[in-house]
C-alpha cells in the first residue's frame, strides 16, 4: 500500500449542521499532488458530497483559496509533500461567512470592488480610430504589479482588520483602486479619493502587512495602501492650504 497522508477538512451543511465540524480523510501521498488533488481524490473516490471551488489548477483563476494548516493558500499550488507526514488541516478562508464545507461567501468583496471604481476613468474619451493612449514601458511598469491581482481573497483571510471590521474595504479592492490611480491613462483619481479616503477605506488599514505576505501574485496590497495614504495626506494638506480648490 502506497504511503498515505491524513487531511482534516471542515464540513458544514447549512441544511444539516448548526456549526461546522472537522472530518478526517486519508489520501495517497504522491509527490506531484497538491492539496487540491487530494480534495478531488476524496470527492471522486470517497465522498462525493465534499464541496469546494476550483477551476484552472494553475494559480490564475483565484477560485481555490483555503486555509491550509491555518495559512491562507491557493490549494492548487500547495504540495502535500511539504506537509508530510501530516495531518493537514484544510478549512474555508477565514474572515468570510461559510456557505458549505470549504466554500465561503465572497459577495462582500464584489460589492466593495465596484465601490472603488476599478475601471479607466477619462474626462474625454478618445475615438478608437485615433489609436491608443500612449504609455511608455516605464509608465506601464509603475502600476503593473497592482494589476496582477487574481481576486483569490487570501489577503482578506490574512487581514485582522477585515476580520474585526467587515466594513473595511480590504487589501485587494484598495490595491485595484491604486492600480487605476497609477495608470497614466486614468483621470479618475479625485473621484476615487472620495471613496477611498473614508474611514472604511485606506485609513482602516493599520499596516499589519500580512496581506502582502500571503499574496500568491506578489501584488503587495499593503504597499499600495500605504502609498495611497501618502497621496491622500498630501491632498488633504493641499485642500487646507488652497481651500478655493487646488484639485
Amino acid at each position, binding site marked *: 500500500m502506497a504511503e498515505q497522508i491524513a487531511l482534516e477538512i471542515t464540513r458544514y451543511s447549512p441544511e444539516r449542521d448548526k456549526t461546522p465540524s472537522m472530518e478526517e480523510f486519508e489520501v495517497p501521498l504522491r509527490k506531484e499532488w497538491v492539496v487540491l488533488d487530494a480534495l478531488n481524490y476524496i470527492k471522486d473516490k470517497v465522498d462525493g458530497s465534499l464541496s469546494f471551488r476550483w477551476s484552472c489548477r494553475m494559480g490564475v483563476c483565484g477560485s481555490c483559496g483555503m486555509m491550509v494548516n491555518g495559512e491562507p493558500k491557493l490549494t492548487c499550488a500547495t504540495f502535500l509533500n511539504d506537509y508530510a507526514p501530516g495531518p493537514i488541516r484544510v478549512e474555508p478562508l477565514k474572515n468570510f*461567512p461559510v456557505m458549505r464545507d470549504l466554500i465561503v461567501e465572497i459577495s462582500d468583496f464584489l*460589492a466593495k470592488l465596484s465601490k472603488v471604481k476599478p475601471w479607466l476613468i477619462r474626462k474625454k474619451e478618445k475615438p478608437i480610430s485615433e489609436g491608443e493612449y500612449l504609455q511608455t514601458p516605464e509608465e506601464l511598469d509603475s502600476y503593473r504589479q497592482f494589476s496582477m491581482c487574481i481576486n483569490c481573497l487570501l489577503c482578506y483571510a490574512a487581514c485582522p482588520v477585515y476580520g474585526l471590521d467587515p466594513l473595511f474595504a480590504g487589501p485587494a479592492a484598495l490595491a485595484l483602486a491604486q492600480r487605476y490611480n497609477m495608470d497614466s491613462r486614468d483621470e479618475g483619481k479625485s473621484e476615487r479619493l472620495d471613496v477611498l479616503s473614508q474611514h472604511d477605506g485606506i485609513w482602516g488599514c493599520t499596516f499589519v502587512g500580512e496581506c502582502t505576505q500571503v499574496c500568491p501574485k506578489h501584488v503587495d496590497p499593503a504597499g499600495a495602501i500605504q502609498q495611497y495614504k501618502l497621496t491622500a495626506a498630501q491632498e488633504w494638506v493641499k485642500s487646507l492650504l488652497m481651500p478655493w480648490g487646488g484639485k
Partner: protein
Amino acid sequence: MLRYTEYPPRGYRVRVSTYWWTGRRAYLRFILRELSSIFVAWFVLETLFQINALAGGPSAYSDFEQFLRNPVVIASNVISFLFVLFHAVTWFNLSPKAMAVRLGGKRVPAALIAGPNYVAWVLISAGVAWLILRG
C-alpha cells in the same frame, strides 16, 4: 438577480476570538507595535514633566531627578525605550512601502529608501549623546 451588498446576510460567521493576535507571530508583532504608542506617550509625558520641573527651579528639578532614580521608573523607562526602538524600526521599514520612488524607469530598492532614515537616526542620536555626555 444578484445585487451585492456589503456584509451579506448569508452563511455561517465565525466570531473572531478576543485572542486572535496570539495565533500568529506577525499578528503579535503588530499588536506590540500598536501597544508601543503607549510607551511613546509615556516618554512624551516624562519630557513635559521634565520641562515643567526645569521651569520650577533647582529644587523642583532635583525632586524630578529623585523621581527618575526610583527603580520602578528606571524599569519602566528601560521597557519604554525598547518599545520606542521597536516603534522606530517598524516606522522606518514602512517608509519604502509608502514611497514608491522611481528613477530611470526602475523602482528604487527598499534598502535605499529605508537606509537614509536609519543613517539620519544614528547621526542625530550620536549628536544628542555627544551633547549630553561630553560634560
